[in-house]
């Protein structure tokens, strides 16, 4: 129901109340639970978005300081040709695709469906792990080639961004495992399907965030300047 209309309603007039607005608890318990988890995830994603947004905005501001040296641009800079990052992105994309498959695959036979789902979830786990390992490799390579975390601010922000992103992915991983364990314990198909759907959203969200970070962290100084100007720095 339209939130504005709600805020404008006069609650002391009983005939003005829109009762269908209020959530009807006579509905099935599971539906309440599913709706709730979805709402919670939406709010959680808002929180995570604020985190990344704030780091990004401070990053853009810092990019205009004289001591900032972008990590991309001339060919000798590590991200002028970020092959490893592309590979990692591919892993994350595969993880996203596979988890979607796990959540939506339909098969005639229940045991086939379950097997497919289990396989797909294992692949999700595998690809996500490969992504995280790949990120750690990038860290290692960067540090070895002299771009330590406490060097240039561009370095610091790279480690910060990827570290926080990685932590969120790891957290999602734990949530996914809990979803699977819960399914194994209670064999509730509807609940599983709902929760898997939410995991899919989360993986897609982290993938989009990653691609935005990728673009931001491998941009050239000229790009930073343009974006910073747009933001008023």
């Amino acid at each position, binding site marked *: 129901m339209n939130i504005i209309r709600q805020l404008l309603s006069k609650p002391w007039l009983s005939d003005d109340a829109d009762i269908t607005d209020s959530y009807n*608890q006579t509905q099935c318990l599971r539906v309440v639970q599913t709706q*709730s988890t979805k709402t919670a995830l939406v*709010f959680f994603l808002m929180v995570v978005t604020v985190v990344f947004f704030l*780091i990004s905005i401070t990053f853009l501001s810092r990019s205009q300081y004289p001591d900032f040296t972008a990590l991309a641009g001339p060919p000798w800079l590590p991200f002028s040709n970020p092959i490893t990052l592309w590979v990692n992105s591919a892993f994350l994309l595969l993880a996203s695709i596979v988890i979607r498959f796990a959540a939506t695959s339909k098969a005639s036979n229940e045991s086939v469906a379950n097997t497919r789902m289990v396989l797909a979830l294992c692949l999700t786990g595998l690809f996500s792990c490969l992504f995280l390992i790949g990120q750690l490799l990038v860290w290692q390579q960067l540090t070895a080639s002299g771009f330590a975390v406490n060097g240039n601010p561009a370095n610091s922000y790279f480690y910060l961004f990827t570290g*926080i992103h990685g932590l969120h992915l790891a957290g999602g991983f734990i949530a996914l495992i809990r979803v699977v364990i819960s399914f194994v314990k209670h064999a509730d198909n509807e609940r599983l399907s709902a929760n898997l759907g939410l995991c899919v959203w989360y993986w897609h969200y982290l993938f989009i965030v990653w691609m935005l970070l990728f673009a931001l962290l491998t941009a050239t100084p000229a790009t930073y300047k343009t974006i910073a100007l747009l933001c008023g720095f």
Partner: protein
Amino acid sequence: MKEIQPIADDHQPSGFFAKYVWSLDHKVIAIQYSVTAIFVGLIALVLSALMRLQLGFPDHFSFIDPSSYLQYVTMHGIIMVIYLLTALLLGGFGNYLIPLMIGARDMVFPYLNMLSFWTYLVSVIVLIASFFVTGGPTGAGWTLYPPQAILQGTPGADNGILLMLLSLAIFIIAFTMGGLNYVTTILQARTRGMTLMRMPLTLWGIFIATILGLLAFPALLVSAIMMLFDKLLGTSFFMPAILSLGENLDYTGGSPILFQHLFWFFGHPEVYIVALPAFGMVSDVIATHARKNIFGYRMMVWAIVAIGGLSFVVWAHHMYVSGMNPYFGFFFATTTLIIAVPTALKVYNWLLTLWRGNIHFTVPMFFAIGFIFTFTHGGLTGLFLGNVVVDLPLSDTFFVVAHFHMVMGVSPIMVLFAAIYHWFPLVTGRMLHTGLGKLHFWVTFLGTYAIYLPMHYLGFLGVPRRYFALGDTAFIPDSTQTLNAGITVAALIVGVGQLIFIFNLIWSLRRGKVAVANPWQATSLEWQTPQCPPVHGNWGDNVPVVYRWAYDYSVPGHKTDFTPQNKTDAESLLPDKGGL
């Protein structure tokens, strides 16, 4: 009507640990939060007494040196704002009241709720641990400004600051878990008939405050992580090229002002995270004890929403003298003075609720009146500080200290006491002793005003805050020392006076008068449970259905001067008006 399944864990908990320690019941969790918060709050109160001893009687207490003084200042501030007020208002009252007021059996995520308490407790333990590490807790002020917070010359720059930042990060995780519960429960688990606009203002305050918290705490988290990086990894987020005690350090290029932006982007909404639940609760206390509907309910809701939204665009009024781009001053002064308007409207509406009411002078009502008086005062002094150029002579003086204690310390505490005296019968089934309550009120109300009114004048004079001692300063007359001593005495009396309250709480738990159900004859749902105090599952077999808003007090044509939200018209109207 179909049989409703409880949302919460269906199994009745058994055994001491399941019932009282790892409980999933929102009421138990609320009490756990409240007890923990009040406990650390008392520690912070003692710290403030130590601070006042130094300020009132300098050179008398050899165990208070500049280093420990700054540590007391810092820990007092951070505990009060975050670990007491935020935790008690949202974790304590939010947890207890939300499911009851919306007619739910529990929060939608009881397990997550339990986790959030234990995480909060861990954050408290980590914070207190900083008293026991080498160098002691950080003494950088609750605002933790870099570069000083992580450099020698400030207490706790080695270990204390690390534990502080870690504790804050853990708290934020706890808050996020709790916050997701509160907003989701309010949005999804309201019982039939409970529209958003039929919710009591307590819930609106808590609801918007939770959203503010979810969106604002990330800024604190980001700034804490960046400061940890600067300290532990040698990055330069906030650290420019600097000397530390004469030695050149390795940092370069960072901006201390950046920290301040991040901190206050969190810090300003934080004060509304404390204030909005207080506004909501005091509205309900006033309405109940004056037997009158809250005046202008819609405006009150809109004001809460507006204040919540505006609170995100005023933060740099804490930074007028920070050295930031001075042109920002124009923008933030304007938004800050704009936010005064919805706040003022709320004050008018509380007064207009009392107008033509039938005011019972119960202890909650006394505290509510005390709130109106002190909040008006504190809000008005905020207008001085918000007006950028007026802030210039007053910034970083005791005027600021007096202002924020009035609006954060005194008035929300008035509401907290009002709320505790009001809801104590619901939680425990007993009444708090009225005589002791009134004594507690007078000592606290008059005492805190005696502390903070004169303090503003120290600020006008120019007496700086966070000064261990004033020494021989030409423009500060000796009479200032007398004034400081007087404030200290008042503070000690108020501090000791709180023992009356603690005693009342403990005594009344065992020997308080047994409460009848709904002793204040309130309309909101939390008082309409079949058992008082409510048991696990809250509503017995059937959850309530709501037929009216939360403020049907003294409605013409109704049988009694209050009509609970779950009473139908047939049950509540007089026979000649259509009732039964």
